[in-house]
């Protein structure tokens, strides 16, 4: 059962709502464990073995091991949690944001310096039908 929401029409956005909270719990709690230095060490030493401590789905496991940042959101990851994997890798929020939006790091950084991504044309998935309605 998937409920419809008015925010479903926002493009490129994964609202961490009840449904994602339900499917993403174990994935996010694994990420939460990385707040402890000893866990970060264990994860860095052997990621696959560390993940065995958590009941992730095969797809959740794949997204973590492959650092598929966008994929993690689609299987219930919450960005404030998944970013902790990136911190383990020495990446920043901006590095991950660039990867999720599918552009090189430098391109993303330049976009931000130029004032960020414009809301124009980015408000609705079906831009022709609904933009600025």
């Amino acid at each position, binding site marked *: 059962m998937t409920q419809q929401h008015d925010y479903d029409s926002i493009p490129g956005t994964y609202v961490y709502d009840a449904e994602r909270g339900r499917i993403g719990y174990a994935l996010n709690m694994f990420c939460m464990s990385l707040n402890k230095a000893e866990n970060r060490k264990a994860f860095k030493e052997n990621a696959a073995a560390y993940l065995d401590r958590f009941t992730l789905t095969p797809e959740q496991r794949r997204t973590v091991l492959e650092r598929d940042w966008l994929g993690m959101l689609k299987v219930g990851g919450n960005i404030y949690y998944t970013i902790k994997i990136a911190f*383990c890798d020495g990446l920043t929020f*901006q590095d991950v944001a660039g990867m999720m939006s599918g552009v090189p790091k430098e391109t993303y950084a330049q976009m931000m310096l130029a004032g960020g991504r414009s809301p124009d044309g980015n408000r609705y998935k079906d831009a022709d039908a609904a933009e600025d309605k």
Partner: protein
Amino acid sequence: MAKIVAGIACSHVPAIGVAMDKGQTATAYWAPLFNGYGPARDWLAKLAPDVAIIVYNDHANAFSLEIIPTFLIGVADRFPIADEGFGPRPVPPVQGHPELAWHLAESLILDEFDMTIGNEMPVDHGLTVPLSVTCGQPAAWPFKVIPICVNVVQYPPPTGARCFKLGQAIAKANERFPQELRVVIYGTGGMSHQLQGERAGLINRQFDTDFLDNLTKDPLSLTKISHTEYMREAGSEGVEMVMWHVMRGALAEDAAEVYRHYHVPASNTAAALMILDNRSAS
């Protein structure tokens, strides 16, 4: 009584804290942001409040998804600095004000705001970055702090209207406190930003400017903005701005804007700092 003398709206971008902790505030990237903080620090230092109520959200540090309080008040006398995944920020621990915090907790609950009470919790960048922004890098923070956490991580956060009413109840409770105290209240987070998905990096300067203008012109109109409108117009994480309404609700209607700074980008975010003087207000 405890008198709320000022309201402060302040973004809490983690990278701002990192830039300060690593001594990078004078670089070409960061100087335009940090140059705008100086006058606000001077103003706040002159004001010399006794206590700051800081309304912020925890980012998977004090709390995880195990238990998600919608509104929480911290009543401890000391709040350690959280390890957010890369070690704790090298800033002083935060001293609480348990007497006022417990008074607020009791008053708010009896006033029908069902607060969760936090006796033991670390505080993350959501709280410490606004302290750093407005106080610089002192050996100890210059005032006591009462953390009020608002959930904005698990949808839905409380509505802007509800946050505004909580602010009104905080003001009323302060007035009934038996000791004389001068209090500032911070609303943190925002402004427009999106940290996730293909649409990451969204910034809406027009939305932000209108929002800042209306904090004095027509704050009640801002409380009617829906979560979907925040997310569509100001980015998925822009919904954090509901926390500013707690601050605004705690001030008088005619609180006066005395300082404004707005800069894009701070990492992925439109960073703002605004001070509202509540002293001459009716």
